């Protein structure tokens, strides 16, 4: 759907009418692709709280069933207290709210705003950081919930951070490895109860607004240079200046929306003015988002308020505004970027508004509601965050919109083609699932690294816009016409890269920073003496050529739990377990561990039945191993 319509760098309100008419009449006929959504809210049973109050949206698979689940944070609405948060578990054909049963319905009567899922303890599970937005009831403290691996959560806040004594009212929150030490830290905005009333300029206040991960499962509250100034709404945390660390942008009311540059050590400096952001105090910005909308490998910025969405491009060391979309009071909270039509260029969806097509140069053109099927989006009352996720696993991006004063909405993308590639990071350079901070670049096959053939640049972001977390899987439009294939470069936060070549569209790649070994198998063997017959299990594997710095392998026995059997040197490819039960079935897992103690995903092998192996098998195996060494 790449259509060039305008060279204008901004559109005034008056131009909108013309654009609207044009889009209604002409655009559908010119469209090369189709953006088409269906409202499936009732079909899947995800209308949100009966008390309304929808604020934030997170798409994440909390229970490892391969289907995205949906977390909706709710704030007190319509004067009704005790509006619980929602955790919709995806059962394929329907969702069911299991927040209470799974322990994340939140204890604070006045609700939650910012929430972000991240693997805080590097156990391969998405844990939840849910902030608490103080209004009138104290105490109002943040919560950290640990995922038990099955999507059930335990509030471990009191055990891992010092007792909270100050009521807070965060909106945006973020999770990323801010200090580059290999674990996920947490950031929350508005670390003061009275911040909600700070819609006027105030003197900056240095307050603890980070939870710095100590690496041992505990966190230390810290101030790292981001002052409380005005009321922060949305927060986006990503590598804005492409220097390899995670910066933070905040959309503010009562203070200029700004960017805090990370010095690489987790210390931040306000560079909003230096980087060309408007220094006005009267804007009421709600959301800030970053995405590479022109496929040049650098992130553009979108700042949204009730009045307008402003798009900025980084030129040199400064952001320059190149397009303004006037909103007329609708859709002023959250901008979401996704390649909905699979043309390799990101479209823009404004929460509670409509979808805008990308003209191929990063400029956005409205798509008519009749074409997009998003008329119900335009009918929302007070749309807040919207999250993008492929909840039905059909390869395209669907949209969930939280409405503060009406039913939430789920829009299913009807693209229904195989012109896409998804990349899920199951194990990043910090050993965490999700890959927050990881960058992904998709090129035409054979042109890896050539900017002219860059078909998409993505960065996995914890939370962005206004309280939204898209599915932690990078989604690319990747047209398959002519048998096109693609090369992918993944750059982890520590700078190390992994390359995949000749990827056919229509598939989801599951990527790990360190990969498990290959061909992990096991068998039972009878080791005979004359008067004793020992059954042993011989496990063998082969090194994964994609790994470059494997230090050791970890071998586990898998039963109801996973028990470490042995840590083996990287040049070991055979392990024998002596004197096992002859008839009992066994299951094992093996992982590779790198120099930074990052452990790969496990691969499993089952060993069943009675022993049966001969010396010939062993000799063949030994010969193979000798050949490898």
């Amino acid at each position, binding site marked *: 759907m790449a259509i060039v319509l305008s060279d204008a760098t901004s559109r005034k309100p008056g131009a909108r009418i013309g654009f609207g008419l044009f889009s209604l009449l002409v655009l559908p006929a010119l469209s090369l692709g189709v953006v088409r959504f269906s409202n499936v809210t009732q079909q899947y049973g995800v209308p949100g709280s009966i008390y309304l109050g929808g604020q934030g949206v997170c798409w994440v698979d909390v229970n490892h069933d391969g289907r995205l689940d949906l977390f909706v944070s709710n704030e007190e609405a319509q004067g009704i207290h005790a509006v619980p948060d929602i955790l919709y578990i995806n059962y394929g054909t329907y969702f069911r709210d299991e927040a209470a049963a799974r322990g994340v319905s939140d204890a604070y009567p006045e609700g939650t705003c910012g929430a972000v899922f991240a693997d805080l303890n590097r156990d391969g599970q998405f844990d939840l950081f849910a902030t608490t937005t103080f209004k009138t009831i104290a105490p109002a403290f943040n919560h950290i919930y640990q995922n038990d691996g099955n999507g059930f959560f335990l509030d471990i806040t009191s055990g891992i951070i010092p007792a909270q004594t100050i009521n807070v009212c965060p909106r945006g929150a973020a999770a990323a490895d801010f200090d580059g030490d290999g674990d996920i830290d947490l950031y929350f905005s508005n670390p003061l109860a009275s911040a909600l009333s700070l819609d006027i300029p105030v003197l900056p206040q240095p307050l603890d607004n980070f939870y710095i991960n100590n690496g041992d499962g505990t966190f230390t509250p810290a101030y790292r240079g981001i002052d409380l100034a005005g009321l922060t709404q949305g927060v986006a945390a990503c590598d804005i200046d492409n220097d390899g660390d995670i910066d933070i942008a905040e959309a503010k009311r009562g203070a200029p929306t700004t960017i805090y540059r990370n010095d690489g050590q987790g210390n931040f400096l306000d560079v909003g003015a230096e980087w060309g952001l408007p220094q006005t105090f009267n804007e009421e910005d709600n959301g800030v988002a970053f995405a590479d909308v022109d496929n040049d490998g650098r992130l553009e910025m979108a700042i949204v308020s009730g009045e307008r969405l402003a798009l900025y491009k980084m030129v040199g060391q400064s952001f320059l505004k190149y397009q303004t979309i006037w909103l007329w009071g609708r859709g002023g909270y959250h901008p979401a970027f996704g390649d909905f039509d699979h043309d390799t260029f990101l479209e823009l969806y404004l929460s509670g508004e409509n979808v805008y097509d990308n003209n191929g140069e990063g400029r956005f053109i409205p798509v008519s509601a009749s074409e997009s099927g998003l008329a119900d989006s335009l009918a929302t009352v007070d749309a807040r965050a919207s999250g993008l996720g492929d909840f039905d696993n059909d390869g395209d991006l669907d949209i969930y919109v939280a409405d503060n004063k009406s039913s939430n909405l789920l829009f299913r993308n009807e693209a229904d083609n195989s012109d896409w590639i998804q990349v899920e990071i199951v194990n990043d350079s910090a050993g965490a699932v999700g890959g927050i901070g990881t960058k992904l670049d998709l090129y035409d096959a054979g042109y890896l690294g050539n900017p002219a053939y860059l078909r998409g640049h993505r960065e996995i972001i914890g939370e962005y816009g206004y309280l939204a977390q898209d599915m932690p899987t990078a989604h690319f439009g990747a047209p398959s016409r002519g048998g096109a294939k693609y090369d992918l470069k993944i750059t982890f936060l520590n700078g190390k890269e992994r390359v995949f070549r000749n990827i056919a569209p229509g598939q989801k790649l599951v990527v790990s920073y360190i990969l498990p070994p290959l061909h992990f198998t096991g068998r039972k063997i*009878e*080791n005979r*003496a*004359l*008067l*004793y*017959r*020992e059954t042993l299990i011989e496990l063998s594997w082969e090194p994964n050529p994609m790994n470059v710095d494997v230090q050791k392998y970890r071998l586990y026995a898998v039963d109801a739990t996973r028990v470490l059997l042995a840590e083996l040197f990287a040049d070991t490819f055979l392990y024998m377990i002596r004197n096992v039960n002859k008839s009992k079935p066994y299951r094992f897992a093996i992982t590779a561990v790198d120099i930074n103690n990052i452990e790969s995903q496990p691969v499993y092998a089952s060993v069943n039945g009675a022993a049966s192996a001969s*010396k010939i098998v062993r000799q063949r195996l030994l010969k193979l191993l000798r050949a490898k060494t």
Partner: protein
Amino acid sequence: MKKMLLVFVLQFLCFGISGAPAQEHIEFEPEYPISSTLGLLAGFDFIQDATFQEIYGASAFFFGVEYTFRYPVKNQHGLDLAVSLRQLKKSGLTSYTEENTRLRLTTISASVRYSFELQRWMFFVGPGFDYMIYKETYAKTFPKTAIEGNDTGFHISAGVYCNIVSTLAVEGYFKYGVATVEHSAFRVNLGGAELGLGLVYRFEF
């Protein structure tokens, strides 16, 4: 060990020869008195068990002692009662891990035999009973240190004595035994063929 055995056999041989009366040629008594023999045995066991053969090889050397008591029933025909004690020791490797293992098998046999004496030759054949004491010792890395036990079996044997002098004979025999050691999950057949040679000192009552 084998050298010591050889020295011992030579000493035994010298003792037998020296105990014989000086004669220019051997003359056998026309009658057949009650007699006994005491001798040393050595030979090879060919244990049938496939695992034994895999671990220890096709055969195993043994040595032992034998005592026989001969009662002449009629003319050359006699009835022998024989008791022997034999022991074999052999080292091997376990079938898969190739760890060292060592077997010690001690067999006490008692047999009743029909014997027939013809000039300097005496042939015998008869069944017998075996009592075996076994011990298999393993390498430190093996899950077990050792397994030991005992069991019984049967055999049938046939052989011949050849008198060198009146008090000394050379014996050759064949024995086939059946002895199954039962374990919970498997059986071990310690029986099989045995070929042995003996040097026996003969004396009469």
